[in-house]
């Protein structure tokens, strides 16, 4: 009955209640959609980093990521590749020879990471081979069969003022510590969503770079793509326990900035929505305070005829909850529908594509929010309602029935 009475009381002044319900709905929808956009951007940054360079897991010599010297190759690399190929969780394995060098054209020069790859394998672990915008990826086309082909990003080509067919000189230190280098022929240009990546990564055949480095064999890095990203830990443990003298790092270990961004997203969202709800709380307090003050005489009557103060308190609390939860549910339904729609069609931000590519974000954002956001949001709405109800309820509790009954209608 108390709940029914609270619900009916809420609709005494429909305009006022609808205004606050609309404010809650719009506030939550705006907050969730903005949060979904942030989530979408973060997801794309992580996905693009995984798809281009990191993969889900990488295996190195334990000292390679610190020292980056060319002789720190992975022991038993071939066995690891064979073992990984047979792991059910793994869908792509790409061994790489990695060296840092200087790429020079007639115009200018810039630092790059030169990745020596097995072309057919690289496409299983990275999206770069499928991101070719001109030419091919290291001999996938007959006319690309030149002596030392190289594939670079469009950003680097633009910076060095080169194009396919141009010669690119890359210099680096060999295994003996001597500066060495070669003139490569650009056979392909790729373009990913990250302009920074495109400017700093070049692909050659593993055998070519190994020859130039003076290495007899081996790889510095094995990148693994998994069918399910949540299996990273499991695969990491399997590899670590099976092979000695290697280190397996997940993308989170290799890119802590992305990991923190992913982990912080929930906290940021919580703070973001809490600020919106705090602003809404003032509106709810105002509405409920007006509701209490307008009904002073009626509340006095209820106290006089034998309604306990705790029931009056509960009634005001339930009215506030009904008001807030109605707005909350509508807000979640609207935001859920809007996020689903935007996730389907995407938000085209091509006007800002240059800026977005610097951060590894594509020009079309697909907003999304984790499902667990909604219970958290509902909990926030309930907490907001409870806090908002305190002051109006105290006002009602402080009424003296005899005095309240004397007030004007």
């Amino acid at each position: 009955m108390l709940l029914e009475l609270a619900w009916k009381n809420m609709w005494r002044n429909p305009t006022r209640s609808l205004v606050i319900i609309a404010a809650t709905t719009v506030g939550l929808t705006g907050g969730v959609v903005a949060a979904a956009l942030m989530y979408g951007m973060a997801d794309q940054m992580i996905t693009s980093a995984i798809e281009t360079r990191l993969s889900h897991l990488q295996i190195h010599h334990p000292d390679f990521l610190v020292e980056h010297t060319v002789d720190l190759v992975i022991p038993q690399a071939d066995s690891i590749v064979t073992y990984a190929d047979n792991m059910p969780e793994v869908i792509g394995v790409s061994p790489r020879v990695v060296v840092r060098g200087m790429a020079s054209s007639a115009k200018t020069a810039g630092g790059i990471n030169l990745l020596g790859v097995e072309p057919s394998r690289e496409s299983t672990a990275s999206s770069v081979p499928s991101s070719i915008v001109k030419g091919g990826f290291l001999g996938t086309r007959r006319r690309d069969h030149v002596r030392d082909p190289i594939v670079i990003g469009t950003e680097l080509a633009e910076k060095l003022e080169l194009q396919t067919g141009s010669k690119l000189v890359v210099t680096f230190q060999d295994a003996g510590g001597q500066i060495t280098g070669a003139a490569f022929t650009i056979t392909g240009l790729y373009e990913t969503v990250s302009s920074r990546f495109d400017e700093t990564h070049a692909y050659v055949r593993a055998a070519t770079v190994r020859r130039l480095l003076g290495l007899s064999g081996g790889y510095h890095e094995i990148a693994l793509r998994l069918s399910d990203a949540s299996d990273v830990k499991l695969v990491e443990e399997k590899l670590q326990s099976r092979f000695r003298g290697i280190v397996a790092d997940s993308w989170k270990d290799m890119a802590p900035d992305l990991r923190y961004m992913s982990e912080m997203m929930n906290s940021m969202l919580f703070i973001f929505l809490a600020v919106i709800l705090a602003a809404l709380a003032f509106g709810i307090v105002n509405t409920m305070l007006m509701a209490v003050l307008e009904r002073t005489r009626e509340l006095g009557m209820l106290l006089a005829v034998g309604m306990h103060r705790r029931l009056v308190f509960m009634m005001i609390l339930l009215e506030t909850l009904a008001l807030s939860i109605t707005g909350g549910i509508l807000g979640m339904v609207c935001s859920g529908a809007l996020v689903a729609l935007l996730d389907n069609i995407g938000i085209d931000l091509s006007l800002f594509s240059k800026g977005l590519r610097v951060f590894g974000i594509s020009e079309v954002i697909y907003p999304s929010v984790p499902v667990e956001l909604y219970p958290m949001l509902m909990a926030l709405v309930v907490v907001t309602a409870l806090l908002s109800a305190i002051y109006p309820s105290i006002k009602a509790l402080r009424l003296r029935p005899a005095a309240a009954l004397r007030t004007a209608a």
Partner: protein
Amino acid sequence: MSVVETKGVSKTYHESTVPVHALTDVSMKLDEKEFAALVGPSGSGKSTMLNMIGGLDAPTKGSVSVGTRDLAALSVPQLVEFRLHNIGFVFQAFNLIPVLTARENVEFIMLLQKQKKRERHERAEELLQAVGIADRADHRPSQLSGGEQQRVAVARALASRPTLVLADEPTANLDSHAAENLLDIMARLNEEYGTVFLFSTHDERVIRRARRVITLHDGRIASDERHD
């Protein structure tokens, strides 16, 4: 046996710089089945007296007993519970809950008493029949006339089967016809249920119908007359 007894009740308000003596040394008794009116000019202390008897306010001095209970001995929650089960209220401005129907307004008191649904329905039906408004039971207060609303208020006041009904200017907002009708109903209910009715009023029609008239003047009892 007295249903209400006040002994030397005084009430002084200190809400402004000058203390206001609303009641001074008022002693009176109301016996079973009384149909009494508390009369007097504005400011004579009628409403204050009703508040004291109804346990809505406490006397500065003296004591108020309803039935066997000294109201001063009850804690605030006990007083609320006591009012719920023993005293019915009828207010000048009806004070029905606007979002509930006439039936729901009557049932509300019984709901506070935690009575069963069936009992509530039956009692509400009986009372709405008794005040002649059963056919308007599902109307909200805004759909009822002033007279009808006050009849619902009387039915609500009797819902808890109280020994005492306190009615503060019950006819003040009613036209003659509605007022007479209401008084007929209350007199009949007083006869049928034996409930004590105490009105505070200026209304000659009420004074004429009351079997006892207690006149207050400047917070003191000026006269106490029985019209049996």
